[in-house]
């Protein structure tokens, strides 16, 4: 079923997703934009997990999928908490620019 596709194809796809997500995290000022970048990075990790579990074979076939499910679960928790914090910041400061949240800096 692999039909000429190797592990490298999927790893490179995950790498590209990770790089785009990392660029998004590094270059954004909008706090929601940073969260979007983190979601991209987590998806890249999941692509790698599933690819390794498919091409690894053997008894470890389901381990990668189980780990991917844990990653998705933590991503959901992280998104909910992160967005709640961002909304709380917006209620207090009327902005979600990460450069403007400097109330705690000395």
């Amino acid at each position: 079923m692999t039909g000429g596709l190797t592990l490298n194809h999927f790893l490179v796809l995950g790498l590209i997703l990770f790089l785009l997500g990392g660029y998004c995290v590094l270059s954004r000022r909008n706090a929601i934009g940073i969260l979007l970048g983190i979601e991209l990075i987590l998806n890249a990790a999941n692509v790698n997990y599933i690819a390794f579990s498919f091409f690894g074979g053997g008894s470890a076939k389901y381990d990668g999928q189980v780990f991917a499910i844990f990653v998705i679960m933590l991503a959901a928790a992280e998104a909910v908490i992160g967005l709640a914090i961002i909304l709380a910041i917006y209620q207090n400061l009327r902005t979600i620019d990460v450069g403007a949240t400097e109330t705690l800096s000395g």
Partner: protein
Amino acid sequence: MLTQFIFYILAAITVLSAGITAFSRNIVYSAFALFGAFAGVAGIYILLGADFLFIIQIFIYIGGILVVTIFAVMLTQGIAEVNVSNRAVGFMPALITMAGAGAVMLYAIVRTPWYHAKAAPLAPTTYGIGNAFLGPYVLPFEVASIVLLAALVGAVVISRQETRQ
């Protein structure tokens, strides 16, 4: 050949959508383009024989996380940002950092002799995943439920409007 064709289609959808997410100046476009990236990754899961992960990706990422994110985008004003770059890290440093990291990882991917198992016939994965969750992974599974409960309560406490007396 058909598998390769499908893979490249899915990869193109995923990478283009992720590119819009990363480079768009309007956060609304970024949030909506994320749909394409999630859907493309879901297709990749199907290609790799992970049918349960496909459903999970559709339900949780597209049906849950993306909707919550778009809600948050709509609830915050001044979202169409003009100056996208960060104070600490600008466009070029971010680009150079990620290009350097990407070059190192690409070198590692290409040079490593990966182990390729014989392609197993495709079969439903729910039985194995269920066994794994209630067998060797039962402790992380239970801890995950506590994490989700804490996240639920925490989100409600953090985001509720303070009523000041």
